């Protein structure tokens, strides 16, 4: 038997276009906007065997549900250097430019204060500090790529880091991930837990990436892209980006306030 031909970008593009057409038809027929990606998204091949086929079971109307509360973190859980990924080593990290990320986290209502924000990313060459990342780009001894911070009273957070490089992966032939930073957020309830990725504006790889395109709703996709904000840039130092994060899901306090 001859092995199947390698999966090409145009195969993936065709699958993504088909799913999008189906979504847009459903929207035109009155379906609500899908804010999150479907768990079953075949163009992202790793999703095939890792999504449930049974519908999720709704748990609503139980005010005692443990998930309406959530873990708490405090200043013992972060250190002074955690928010500046360029200062965690003695030397200077390889970079094109430092980037300052600044924005706020909120739930669909009020700002989320004192919540843990974690991020991780590849270095400027597109390589993760992870043994299983075999992308033949150099590791950077002065850059690990992990950050943590607690949100302020207004829900704001701020990190200083470098722009990660794009990197190849094996979803299909010639697959490249656009530059992105992974984020993990806690809200005031476990239901609000969010893990996601932030992108930089105008990246030419957006259209080719089945992970970004797993968010089929165009407006929702746009919410994953940070905005350049010149007022956040610092002379001779860093370019500023703003990326607001809005957490989904009910919480005990939110329900008490009448949603």
């Amino acid at each position: 038997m001859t092995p199947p031909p390698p999966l090409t970008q145009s195969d993936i593009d065709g699958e993504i276009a088909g799913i999008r057409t189906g979504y847009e038809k459903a929207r035109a027929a009155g379906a609500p906007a899908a804010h999150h990606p479907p768990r079953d998204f075949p163009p992202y091949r790793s999703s095939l065997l890792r999504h449930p086929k049974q519908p999720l079971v709704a748990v609503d109307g139980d005010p005692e549900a443990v998930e309406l509360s959530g873990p708490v973190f405090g200043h013992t859980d972060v250190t002074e250097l955690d928010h500046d990924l360029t200062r965690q080593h003695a030397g200077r990290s390889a970079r094109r430019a430092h980037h300052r990320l600044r924005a706020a986290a909120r739930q669909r209502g009020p700002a989320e204060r004192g919540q843990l924000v974690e991020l991780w990313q590849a270095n400027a060459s597109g390589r993760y500090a992870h043994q299983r990342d075999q992308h033949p780009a150099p590791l950077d001894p002065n850059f690990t790529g992990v950050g943590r911070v607690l949100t302020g009273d207004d829900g704001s957070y701020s990190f200083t880091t470098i722009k990660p490089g794009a990197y190849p992966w094996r979803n299909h032939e010639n697959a490249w991930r656009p530059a992105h930073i992974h984020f993990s957020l806690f809200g005031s309830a476990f239901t609000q837990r969010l893990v996601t990725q932030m992108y930089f504006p105008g990246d030419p790889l957006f259209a080719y990436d089945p992970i970004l395109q797993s968010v089929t709703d165009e407006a929702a996709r746009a919410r994953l892209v940070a905005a350049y904000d010149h007022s956040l840039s610092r002379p001779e130092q860093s370019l500023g980006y703003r990326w607001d994060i809005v957490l989904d899901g009910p919480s005990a306090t939110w329900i008490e306030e009448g949603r």
Partner: protein
Amino acid sequence: MPSLPPTPSHTVGPFYGYALPFPGGGDIAPAGHPDALTLHGYVYDGAGEPVPDAIVEFWQAGPDGSLAGAPGSMRRDPVTGGFLGRNGVDFTGFGRVPTDADGHYTVRTLPPGAPSPVPYISVCVFARGLTHHLFTRAYLADGPDALLASLAPERRATLIALPEPDRDRTHRFDIRLQGEEETVFLDFG
């Protein structure tokens, strides 16, 4: 207050391993606590293969039933920047463990107290290939519970983490992402 559209979820990807796990992430119970129990199991995919790159989080009430939690799950050493482990006194109620190369995870914790009549630990699963995390519950016993009562018996069984007869205070909870005996996953709206 206007309701803002939420930020979409994305997969955790394959390379979170140097960022999200932390030493002592599965040690929710204070070391040597006489009431500590072990919850462990495997994560499987739709082909029945273990998932070696999942990361599983746990949230639960304290033994007194409190859902207030406490900071300090990731307590840090300001001198080295390293992780110190929990302080051994406060019950944080939070755990985070990656699956190992066999797709296996273990946490040590204290049994959750009231308010729920049947004690359960809330579980959140992340993995490469999973575009949006999945919530489930590990019930440490079967009993009267609104969610359990709403499920067919074979589905209900996927949420019960029964004590293992040949091990002391040890409960087994496997998570099947897809297929036969697929775990019940939850939607909180």
